[in-house]
């Protein structure tokens, strides 16, 4: 009846739970509400711990039937509950706060007893554990598809509840309904017109979207339907028509597309609807929670079916059709990204900016680590070099003032003496080149050697750059610990077209477009480089150095190029970073930045550009939003790195495996050069 594995696994889970509890995690997360006035984040964490243990132990006895699963699940969860109860008893008996310092401010007992006395709290905790175990046992006995739907929708609903304050104002329910309606119409029309070419289908989608847009706009302006909606009360019918036409077109394009894009669109639909519901209810109350749960459950029920159909439709199309489809989807995504800040607000946009900078760096590091397999641990060095190059070239400094210290020059004379001061646009290419050169200089001695040496030398190099910028010896150039201040923001000057068109890219809104542009450029370059002769050489080196050498690849040269190109991208990121913050300090360039970038490309999937983007959103974006979890971000990183390598070494979105048939396909003459 009781499997021996239950005790072992239960006690592993209990050990992890106790360890986490001793860090004061329950007290820290108790402030954040997931369902208003009812469920806090610490309760969610407790539920995850208990159910996790139950699921783990129950899954070991899966073949023995439902009774055994229930029984072992309950036992597993109870062990964890008992472990936590034990910690509470110990906490009340002896003073743990000298050793476990966090318990001073965040004791465990008040949270885990749910405000009861210690004894009744412990009984309550044990009852809850047994319940959680029973639920997990029951969950395991239903079909796996249903289980996945339940777990995923619970997780996503919880995340919507967590982010309530940040996302509530993104869109309203009428907005969401209008978008989903138009998207769905385009989708259905395209399915019915599959025999026609993809261009015709796109046209149909665009047209229908435009018509629906006009109709909806008219209704909305007449009645009270669209109150509070941004889309439907947008100024001018023309902008509405364009937006809805594009959405309709997207709908028709998505009807036959690859899995990733299709799934992504469905996710967006789900989030739009749930944010709409949240906005309508004005808080995450029980009605909103239930509705959002239903939205996500329906979505996950539909997703595998619809996606399979869409991708089979995509596969059966001839190749040129597929390309039209893909390019259109890409265009729409870009357009959505262009207008996104208008809806997202200042705070989320600034998070997007940060995520974007990490994407640029990630794409760069991905060339070295993902394509070529060179482990670089001090990537921040090149980021810092880019930032400092722009910093010294765009401000009065030793370099730009002809070797005279700016401090020695009278304030009034600075413009006449410091004639070397550049604009951002003149400085950034130099920053990229400086970073690339540094990559070459560092790479020449090290890249000939065993791969492991590169890791440690670059780690050291990252520290060297930080220490040099920090040190007093180089203070005249790099400003020591105070760094470089008053860096001018990039200015886009179009006054020759229209006197009002002078844009200072200083705010989070404006810099967003510069960063977006940077991402598009780097992603494009990285993508195209990946399919050149050099890119294939890189992949060959990653797969097997000896064979690559035997095939006539100049290892040192190829590695050096890979290293330098990656460094150049980091330099670009640094250049943007410096002029965005208008000041740079040595302590922004710690080894943690390098580790962040490395972690995001590994978790996203080595060698995959969409993976970099997903990884950046998860590892940089989420912790920014979940401020309570800031303290645990690095811990989660470390654990994630280990777990991902153990469980899914290829990452979340691994790069597509190039099949031979596709390469033969792309080599055919009508496709031109591949």
């Amino acid at each position: 009846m009781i499997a021996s594995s239950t005790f072992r696994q239960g006690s592993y889970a209990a050990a992890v739970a106790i360890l986490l509890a001793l860090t004061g995690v329950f007290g820290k997360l108790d402030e954040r509400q997931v369902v208003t006035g009812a469920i806090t984040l610490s309760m969610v964490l407790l539920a995850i711990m208990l159910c996790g243990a139950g699921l783990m132990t129950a899954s070991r006895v899966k073949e023995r039937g439902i009774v055994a699963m229930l029984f072992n699940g309950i036992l597993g969860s109870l062990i964890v509950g008992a472990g936590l109860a034990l910690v509470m008893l110990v906490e009340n008996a002896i003073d743990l706060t000298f050793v476990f310092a966090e318990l001073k401010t965040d004791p465990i007992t008040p949270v885990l007893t749910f405000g009861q006395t210690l004894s009744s709290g412990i009984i309550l905790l044990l009852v809850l554990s047994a319940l959680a175990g029973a639920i997990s046992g029951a969950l395991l006995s239903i079909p796996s598809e249903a289980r996945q739907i339940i777990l995923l929708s619970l997780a996503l609903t919880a995340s919507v509840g967590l982010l309530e304050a940040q996302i509530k104002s993104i869109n309203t329910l009428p907005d969401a309904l209008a978008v989903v309606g138009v998207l769905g119409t385009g989708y259905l029309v395209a399915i019915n017109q599959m025999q026609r070419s993809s261009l015709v289908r796109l046209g149909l989608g665009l047209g229908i979207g435009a018509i629906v847009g006009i109709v909806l706009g008219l209704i909305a302006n007449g009645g009270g339907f669209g109150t509070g909606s941004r889309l439907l009360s947008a100024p001018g019918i023309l902008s509405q028509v364009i937006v809805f036409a594009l959405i309709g077109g997207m709908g028709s394009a998505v009807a036959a597309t690859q899995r990733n894009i299709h799934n992504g669109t469905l996710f967006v639909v789900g989030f739009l609807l749930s944010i709409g519901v949240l906005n309508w209810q004005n808080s995450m109350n029980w009605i909103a929670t239930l509705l959002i749960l239903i939205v996500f459950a329906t979505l996950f029920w539909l997703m595998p079916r619809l996606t399979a159909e869409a991708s089979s439709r995509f596969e059966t199309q001839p190749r040129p059709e597929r390309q039209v489809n893909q390019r259109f989807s890409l265009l729409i995504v870009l357009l959505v990204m262009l207008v996104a800040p208008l809806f997202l607000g200042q705070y989320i946009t600034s998070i997007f900016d940060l995520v974007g900078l990490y994407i640029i760096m990630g794409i760069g590091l991905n060339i070295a680590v993902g394509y070529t397999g060179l482990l670089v641990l001090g990537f921040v060095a090149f980021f810092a070099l880019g930032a400092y190059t722009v910093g010294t070239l765009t401000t009065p400094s030793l370099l730009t003032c002809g070797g005279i210290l700016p401090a020695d020059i009278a304030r009034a004379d600075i413009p006449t003496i410091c004639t070397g001061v550049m604009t951002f646009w003149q400085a950034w290419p130099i920053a990229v080149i400086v970073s690339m050169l540094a990559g070459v200089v560092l790479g020449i001695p090290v890249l000939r050697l065993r791969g492991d040496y590169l890791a440690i030398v670059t780690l050291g190099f990252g520290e060297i750059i930080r220490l040099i910028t920090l040190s007093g010896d180089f203070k005249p150039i790099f400003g020591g610990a105070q760094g470089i201040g008053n860096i001018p923001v990039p200015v886009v000057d179009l006054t020759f077209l229209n006197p009002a068109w002078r844009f200072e890219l200083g705010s989070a809104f404006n810099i967003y477009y510069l960063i977006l542009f940077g991402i598009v450029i780097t992603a494009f370059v990285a993508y195209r480089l990946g399919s050149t002769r050099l890119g294939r050489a890189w992949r060959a080196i990653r797969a097997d150095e000896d064979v690559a050498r035997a095939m006539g690849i100049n290892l040192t040269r190829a590695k050096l190029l890979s290293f330098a190109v990656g460094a150049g991208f980091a330099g670009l990121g640094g250049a943007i970073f410096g002029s965005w913050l208008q000041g740079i300090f040595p302590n922004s360039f710690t080894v943690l930045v390098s580790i962040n970038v490395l972690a995001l490309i590994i978790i996203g999937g080595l060698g995959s550009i969409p993976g970099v983007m997903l990884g950046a959103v998860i590892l940089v974006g989420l912790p920014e939003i979940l401020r309570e979890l800031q303290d645990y971000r690095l811990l989660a990183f470390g654990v994630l790195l280990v777990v991902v390598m153990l469980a899914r070494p290829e990452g979340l979105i691994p790069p597509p495996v190039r099949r031979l048939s596709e390469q033969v396909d792309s080599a055919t003459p009508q496709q031109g050069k591949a």
Partner: protein
Amino acid sequence: MASTASQPATTSGGDGVSLAQRIIKLLRNPLQVAGLVIVIFLVWTIIQNLTGLAAAGRPLSVERIIRVIIFGLAQGSIYALIALGYTLVYGILSMINFAHSEVFMSGAYIGFFAIHWAEQSGLLYSNTALALLITVTVGMAAAVTIAVLLERIAYRPLRGAPRLVPLITAIGASIALQQIFLRLFGSATRVYPEVNFYVLPQLFRLECETIDGAEICKGMDLINGRYDVQLLGMELQLRPIFFVVFFLAVLMMAILWYIVRRTKIGKAMRAVAEDRKTASLMGINVDRVIVSTFILGAALAGAAGVLFALYNTQVSPFMGFTPGIKAFTAAVIGGIGNIPGAMFGGLFLGVTESLAPTLLGMSSQLEDVIVFGLLILVLIFRPTGIFGEVLSEKKA
């Protein structure tokens, strides 16, 4: 690991090659020429600096240099102890155990709780030797526990995976350990209590008091003492703790050397390092040998952690990072996988980093820059490290 210092290195030039030929060979390699230029420049800077100081009327005192070297040797023996852990694991698994710096940290940190307990209970004052012994033992035990868990959870399942994979896990484990310590024990820096460990009152008549006419001396304070010593006409201020660290480190290295060279498990280790598959065919339990390697390395690192904390007094979850990468650098400089190499590399690095700022006339803020610069210089001339043999390019 299999090599010894007696085995000649075979990177450049054989025995029959004349000096001129060697120089020509050196000059053909542009990289080595660049390295040579840098070395000459450094030597020139040192000479300039020394003559400049002499001209300014304040030449470097020999006393100061000796003091710096002694400190460097103590610091270097800590590096050497950590470097041995890196080199042992590298020799056997061809893998950089990035989390080794956290093994060192955990020894120092858990050792703090032991010595704190000893202070609270009064044992530290009533029986200092026993208290210190307990502290070191606890530190070593903590380090060993962490290392064994690490091997079991993060490394063993990945044996045979591509090289990059266990390296990334190691980085992840390193961050995770640092953060677990930080979150469990708080972010405040913990400070080792001040210990006065007096020895040999008969030999060293120091800190004496006259009670009832009889002079009673406490002896030499091994941990906290600072003494002015007259030696060969020089006035030297010495701290016994540096000598203690150095001699303890040498003792531990000698024990390690004995284990690896003379015992059965050491022989098994060398066999596994040479060829894992053949070793397992010979009836060696490879898993057990690998675990014992981790245990040996961790015990040294844990002891190093406590020793380091005894004279640096402050411990924090991040204290492992800098000594960790320096120790790894030391292992690479000495030739990774090579035990005497790691010992030599550690001591060499410790002395260099303490001496170089003075000789080059740089601020000591830049001493880490010198360390990594040195690493790159060594790699230019001897890609396999000073004692390293040409490693067969076998795949892990």
